[in-house]
């Protein structure tokens, strides 16, 4: 790992065992749902590593399994869904033994302490994540009182301090208000305050700015980035917006039909995409190259999980699919193309050679 200004602060006890370079690792995670169409894997053989103190973006279109991955990490999957296979390994910052969250029992104290204490989550729609009948102060204090030994008065002081941090003006007054008295942007700040008040080591943000306007989104992204650096939090950022990915992530995993199809640093994935799905997705973004008469598209639509094509699941929509190679056999393995840049495409080397001369990079906007 290169030295970086955003590196986490050194552990307080210097004699403690060295913490892992990763805060969280998913190993061959499979989350299945029993549906009318059968027992379907919404997340299939997903392996991801979240570097400590970094932001890993998980990106994909609806139904790709990115949110199910996030919910699986906190064991929030309810029947008819279940984690069917794999490990979710949390590496505590203090160097203590890693914990496999997937193996914990539903009632275990360890799971109870991990959720909200060490790993917390920001949900997409702030109004559904907040209780309408409790003041925002009570909701933030609840997290503190559950996970820390504090008196209610201390908790209130911490909550006010946190509201200040997330940029809420007049926190002493706002703390006694109800969610309906706040704007959408303010509510999302409250949800962020709730998620960060226990200084979690891992934050899972599930489309935290999708419901917000672009100027408010900019403020919330800045807030998440600033707090993440200040508190040394490692973040898994779930989104469908490649623009947001480019602006906030260190590492990126692209998902399609429940699987990771490409993975690497934000520059590797967005500037030299190696999987045809990632490349096509970037090209079909509107407004980037307005000289082109037509917007390049991806043919067809995402098939249902009950009807996954054989071979590479993307082959019916892929402009580079070759009969006999892409449409037969097992699903292509996610393999290393260039150091830590991985792609799940059987043609990745030849396609890379063919496009080496053609620039993949998106055009910079003409802006004053």
């Amino acid at each position, binding site marked *: 790992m290169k030295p970086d200004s955003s590196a986490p602060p050194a552990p307080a006890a210097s004699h403690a065992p060295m913490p892992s370079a990763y805060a969280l690792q998913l190993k061959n995670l499979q989350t299945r749902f029993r549906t009318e169409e059968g027992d379907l894997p919404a997340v299939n053989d997903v392996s991801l590593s979240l570097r400590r103190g970094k932001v890993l973006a998980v990106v994909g279109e609806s139904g790709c399994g990115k949110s199910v991955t996030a919910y699986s990490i906190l064991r929030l999957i309810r029947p008819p869904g279940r984690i069917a296979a794999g490990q979710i390994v949390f590496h505590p910052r203090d160097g203590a033994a890693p914990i496999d969250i997937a193996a914990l029992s539903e009632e275990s104290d360890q799971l109870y302490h991990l959720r909200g204490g060490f790993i917390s989550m920001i949900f997409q729609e702030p109004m559904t994540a907040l209780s309408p009948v409790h003041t925002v102060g009570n909701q933030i204090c609840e997290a503190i009182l559950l996970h820390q030994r504090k008196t209610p008065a201390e908790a209130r002081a911490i909550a006010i301090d946190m509201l200040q941090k997330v940029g809420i003006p007049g926190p002493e007054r706002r703390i006694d208000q109800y969610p309906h008295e706040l704007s959408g942007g303010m509510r999302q700040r409250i949800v962020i305050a709730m998620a960060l008040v226990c200084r979690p080591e891992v934050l899972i943000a599930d489309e935290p700015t999708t419901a917000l*306007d672009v100027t408010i989104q*900019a*403020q919330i992204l800045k807030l998440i980035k600033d707090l993440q650096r200040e508190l040394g939090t490692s973040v898994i950022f779930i989104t469908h917006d490649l*623009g947001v990915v*480019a602006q906030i992530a260190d590492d990126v995993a692209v998902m399609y039909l429940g699987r990771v199809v490409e993975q690497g640093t934000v520059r590797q994935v967005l500037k030299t995409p190696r999987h045809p799905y990632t490349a096509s997705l970037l090209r079909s973004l*509107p407004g980037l190259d307005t000289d082109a008469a037509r917007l390049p598209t991806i043919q067809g639509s995402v098939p249902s999980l009950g009807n996954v094509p054989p071979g590479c699941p993307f082959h019916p929509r892929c402009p580079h699919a070759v009969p006999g190679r892409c449409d037969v056999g097992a699903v292509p393995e996610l393999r290393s193309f260039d150091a830590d840049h991985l792609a799940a495409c059987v043609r990745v080397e030849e396609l890379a050679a063919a496009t080496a001369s053609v620039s993949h990079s998106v055009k910079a906007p003409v*802006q*004053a």
Partner: protein
Amino acid sequence: MSASPLPSHPDTPLLSVRGLAKHFPIRSQGLLKKQIGLVRAVDDVNFDLRRGETLGLVGESGSGKTTCARTILRALVPTAGSVHFASRGGVVDLATLSDTALKPLRQEMQMIFQDPFSSLNPRMTVGDIVAEPFRIHNLATGSDLEDRVVDILRKVGLRPEHRQRYPHAFSGGQRQRIGIARALIMRPSFVVADEAVSALDVSVQAQVINLLQDLQDELGLTYLFVAHNLGVVRQLCDRVAVMYAGRIVELADTAELFANPRHPYTKMLLSAEPHPDPDVPMSFDSTGEVADAGRLPTGCAFHPRCPRRFEPCDKLIPTLSAIPGTPCAAACHLYPTP
């Protein structure tokens, strides 16, 4: 209301909006329902829509863009102003027309909605959904109607056999095609697309954007494209009107607006858009929140958030006027009217 300060065009515009306003009273909870406030959702909106062009109406939630579009179509009755529409039978003012006189004109103006899941009746077959406008206007029946349905389904990229199916059997992108077919079967000249591609995934969104462009070329449509996504607007629109707190704050050709935004709000909006190239940084400098249309600040509604506010901004409401020497109009005291 003030006369249009906008540059005029040689050909008669398809739509000419002047001084358009839509206010909603806020009434007290009590028995008397006394009016205690006013939401100025749309105020003093002026613009022309040329035949065959696509005008983007952009803004953040609560900016009044959807209310503006609905008021133009007379889905809402305007509080003030005029909407002159060059219908096949001549120019009419949609703002003052009676409901009876309005009904036949509805064929010429249609709307495409945002949510492909809630805008289609789940109990009707696709064939019935698409044919419904014809039935309402009693214009065609039997095999004639059948032919028109098949024809429009083909045009939007669906197959004739899709007529017998129900909306739930279709993906989001296909449902949006059904909504487009329903809007276009009457052969309208004017189409309002309200966030028509916003709910779609990127790969499907691109297909629908291309479809809207193809249909415009083929059928000579004029679009009012209401959207919050700047990329989509840049891709599709000839000109863009930026709304803030119920008013148009800037109106310019698309390329000009993106290359050289004039209004400080447009600048804030464009710079806050995250670009998918990690080497093109976005600005995190935006401050404040969209003004509440029920409690607007005095003067320019944007002044509390504006980095360039000066003396007149909290006193005088700037009017949208052409900036001399440019193809743009802005409502901002930085650009004084001559």
